C-alpha cells in the first residue's frame, strides 16, 4: 500500500529541542522531555492511556484495555522511534511520537483530556519536531480525521500541509530540513 507522499518544498522550523518547560494557560508548570525508555516513563504512559477518554481515540489508537495499550506502546517505544513526554509533576499530561516509515516518520500526539486546550499540544508538537530535526528526521507525515478541526488547525499552524484529501482521513506532511 505504499505510494509516493507529497512533502512541502520548503522546510519548516526551527523548532525548540527538549527538554523545555513552560506554564500552561491554566497556570500548571509543564516540562517536556525526551522519553527515557529505561526508567519509569513507560508505566506513567500506561497510566495516562488508561485514563484516556475513548471519545478522543483516532483511527483505533490509543487502544482500550491495558493489554492492548502495552502492546501498542511496545511498538511505538521501540529504539528507532522518537518520543517526547509532557510532564506535570510526576503525571503524564501528553505524549508525542515519531515512528519510522520508509525514509520518513509517522507522527501522533495525545494530550490527556484534563490538560487539553491549555497550549500543551502546540508545545509538545514543536518539541517533538525539534527533537526529530536534531536526530536527522527530514520528512514527517500524519493522518487526521477531517472533522477534528482543532487538530487540523494545530497541524497547519505548525507548518503541516495537506498532501492527500481523498480519503476519510486527511493526510498532512511537513519537511524539517
Amino acid at each position: 500500500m505504499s505510494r509516493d507522499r507529497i512533502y512541502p518544498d520548503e522546510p519548516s522550523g526551527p523548532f525548540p529541542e527538549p527538554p523545555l518547560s513552560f506554564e500552561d494557560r491554566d497556570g500548571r508548570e509543564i516540562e517536556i522531555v525526551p522519553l527515557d525508555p529505561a526508567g519509569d516513563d513507560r508505566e506513567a504512559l500506561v497510566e495516562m492511556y488508561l485514563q484516556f477518554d475513548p471519545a478522543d481515540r483516532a483511527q483505533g489508537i490509543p487502544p482500550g484495555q491495558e493489554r492492548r495499550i502495552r502492546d501498542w506502546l511496545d511498538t511505538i517505544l521501540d529504539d528507532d522511534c522518537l518520543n517526547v513526554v509532557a510532564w506535570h509533576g510526576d503525571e503524564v499530561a501528553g505524549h508525542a511520537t515519531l515512528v519510522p516509515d520508509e525514509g520518513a516518520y509517522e507522527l501522533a500526539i495525545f494530550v490527556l483530556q484534563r490538560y487539553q486546550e491549555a497550549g500543551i499540544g502546540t508545545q509538545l508538537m514543536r518539541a517533538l519536531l525539534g527533537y526529530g530535526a536534531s536526530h536527522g528526521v527530514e520528512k514527517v507525515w500524519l493522518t487526521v480525521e477531517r472533522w477534528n478541526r482543532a487538530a487540523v488547525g494545530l497541524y497547519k499552524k505548525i507548518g503541516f500541509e495537506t498532501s492527500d484529501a481523498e480519503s476519510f482521513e486527511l493526510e498532512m506532511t511537513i519537511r524539517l530540513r
Partner: protein
Amino acid sequence: MKVLLGIGGSEDSVRALEQTVERARAADDDLTVAIVENPNADATPDEIEDRVRGVLTDADLDAEVRHVAGDPGSRLVDIAEEEGFDQITLGGGETSPMGKIKIGSIAEFVLLNSHVTVKLVR
C-alpha cells in the same frame, strides 16, 4: 445468508477471506468470492484465486469464485444489489506503522454507496 466477499489481495482482505470462510461454514452461508482489481495490492488475480481456492479446500467449503473487472467498489455494489446478496464483506483496513487503522479506498466507496449491509472484518 447470501454473502459476497470482495478480495483484492491486500493483507486485510486475506484476513477477511479466512474469517468469512470460517463463518460461512458455521452459519451455512451461501458464499461468493469476488476477486477484484486492487491497484494497491501486489498479488495478481490468479495468485489471489489460488489463495482463495486453497482456503476453501482447507475448510471443505463450496463457494463460487469469480473474477470481477472494472472499478472494484462500484462493481461489488452492483453485483450485490442486482443478484440479491444480503451482505458485502470486505477487509477492515490496514494499519500504519503507528498502529492507526486506515480503511481502504474500495471499502470507503462500498460503505458510502451500498444499499446492502456491509461488514468490515478486523
